């Protein structure tokens, strides 16, 4: 699992530019899937059909492929790049951040204008330095419209704690890959690795419409409340798999929450309930598709979710995989 996370964190996948991530995931799931395809928004679908007759039901799992990124809006005469955020980023958190231009792989550093007021910092006060002499030489590495993502990768803190810049997306993808590989179900399983989650769950909307599942589970990360002066959130790092009750976009029906909780009991793993009024997930968008799709969620607890050093516990991620496996085997 650790190596899979490390591998996926080396690929750049800003919103609308998830092709590299999709290719890496496709290599992982192709061997076990009956069918793999992509759609016009860049979603990757992997389908596993039941052995034998099956129940005739379809369950959809969904995890976001895109990570917070910036899009280049201007290349100055001096070769410095200006940019705007794609997704939920704070300008103040990006000073000194290392970025990589997705298309060319060029590294750069985010600098700030010296006159900028740090209390009211906006993206217009920041720039990317690719260490090029002028606009013409910068153009070899970046064009207006390119996305750049953060260039940190994965570090290990101890044998079960990892830090990474895009765990929000890739930890969820890894959980979904593992669950999909191991799953045995009488239902048809469609694993959606979605595009454009950061910019309004756009991939999720069209994926749910296309698949029209009987039931869906969104896999995402959720911030914990176990750090000094944190918000009152009961999720803790290392506290087990999170089962969604409420987030900013979704309130889960008690019956679905119960179904996932029962799966946790069956799998003999520790679970915790997620009530995160500030956190986003794709569950809300999936739920609203067509005539309405019963939807639940599994959340990986993550510390520092809004920063470039997100911290996750591999034991929680394994627990999430086991909950999903037990859930799928009982359908």
């Amino acid at each position: 699992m650790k190596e899979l996370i490390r591998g996926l964190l080396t690929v750049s996948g800003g919103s609308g530019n998830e092709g590299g991530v999709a290719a890496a995931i496709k290599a992982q799931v192709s061997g076990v899937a009956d069918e793999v395809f992509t759609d016009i928004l860049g979603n990757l679908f992997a389908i596993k059909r039941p052995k034998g007759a099956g129940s005739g039901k379809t369950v959809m799992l969904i995890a976001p492929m895109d990570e917070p990124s910036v899009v280049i809006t201007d290349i100055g005469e001096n070769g410095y790049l200006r940019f705007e955020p794609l997704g939920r980023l704070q300008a103040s958190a990006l000073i000194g951040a290392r970025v990589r231009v997705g298309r060319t792989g060029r590294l750069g550093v985010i600098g700030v204008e010296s006159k900028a007021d740090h209390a009211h910092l906006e993206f217009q006060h920041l720039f990317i330095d690719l260490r090029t002499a002028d606009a013409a030489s910068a153009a070899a590495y970046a064009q207006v419209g390119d996305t750049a993502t953060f260039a940190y990768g994965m570090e290990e803190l101890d044998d079960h704690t990892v830090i990474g810049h895009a765990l929000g997306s890739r930890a969820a993808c890894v959980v979904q890959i593992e669950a999909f590989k191991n799953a045995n179900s009488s239902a048809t399983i469609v694993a959606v690795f979605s595009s454009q989650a950061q910019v309004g769950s756009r991939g999720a909307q069209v994926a749910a419409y296309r698949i029209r599942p009987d039931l869906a589970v969104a896999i995402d990360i959720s911030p914990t409340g176990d750090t000094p002066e944190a918000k009152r959130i009961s999720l803790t790092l290392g506290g087990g798999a999170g089962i969604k009750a409420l987030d900013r976009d979704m309130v889960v029906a008690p019956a679905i929450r119960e179904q996932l909780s029962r799966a946790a009991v069956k799998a003999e793993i520790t679970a915790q309930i997620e009530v995160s009024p500030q956190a986003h997930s794709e569950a809300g968008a999936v739920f609203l598709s067509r005539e309405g799709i019963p939807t639940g969620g599994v959340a990986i607890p993550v510390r520092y979710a809004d920063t470039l050093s997100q911290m996750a516990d591999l034991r929680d991620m394994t627990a999430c995989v086991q909950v999903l496996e037990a859930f799928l085997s009982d359908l």
Partner: protein
Amino acid sequence: MFEGKEWLMRLSAVPGGSGDESRVAAALMEAAGPYVDEMTLDAIGNAILTRRGSGSRRPRVMLAAHMDEISLLVRAIEPRGFLRVSQAGGFDPRALLGQEVLVHGRETLRGIIGSKPPHLSSAEDRKKSIPLDDLFIDIGMPEEQVRKLVAVGDRITIDKPVMALLEERLAGKAMDDRASLTAMLICLDELTRLRAKADVFAVGTVQEEIGCKGAQTAAFGLMPDLAVAIDVCHGETPGISDDRVQKIGGGPVITFGPFIHPQLFARLRDIAKDNRMDVQIEVAPGHTSTDADPIGTLQAGIPTALISIPLRYMHTAVETLDYADVRNAGILLAQFIASLDAEFVEGLSCF
């Protein structure tokens, strides 16, 4: 004869937070049984009550009134067993202090929303309202027992029976929007005595308070020729200027504005006039913040209207209204539906 007032009092007391509307759906279906041909719960919990019209070219009419009420969820269980909460729907935390609640855990438990007594608060503190994050619920049990019976994510609803005030005034916790469910039931009962051509799909919708979700998906599934949402609006209240509110007891409110189909608005207004019924007109310059909003732009668009029942103290435990407005909203709806035919529906596409 449908006992509307008794049903409203009963429906208002049923707990049903957003995403957890099954108890309300069961009560609604029990009440509607005699007046409809078919009742179904859809995949996400909308209650769809179907009453067939007569004739060969039957307009398809959707009614939408939401079943959910604003509610709280357990966010964390603290040492000594106090519960911290999040909300699903917009409470004013100032109105929550000292309320009695039901915690829907492994068992349904009674609790109270506590606060610091004035004696132990600083003068500065007493001037401030307490944010939702700082409120707590006391269910009077030791922590160990609380943890056995209550889990993070469990729902909490206000525990308050309906209080009958003078004449037809009623005060209760979930008049928003059980009053509209009752108007919908009154309409279905009225239709048994009218000859309506239209097929009526009366929908008790889920999750209105957190984004009008059930109405959107139900309308997608039904694709009616036209829809009428029924909800509550703000009634006259001391301290609020009269131009922002409607008269309580002044009759049902018909909304006009860009989100409302003009021919449906005109038909509702004319029907009220023909029946010598007092109605009030409200203008919504943009969104109406009701189930009408998502329905209007679904698929190729659905002509939509909105009828509201004036109510004061919205989103508190004492939402107060006049039952006469509820009854008249139901009668207006029924007369409106009875007036519909295929020609009228065809004309709706000519804006």
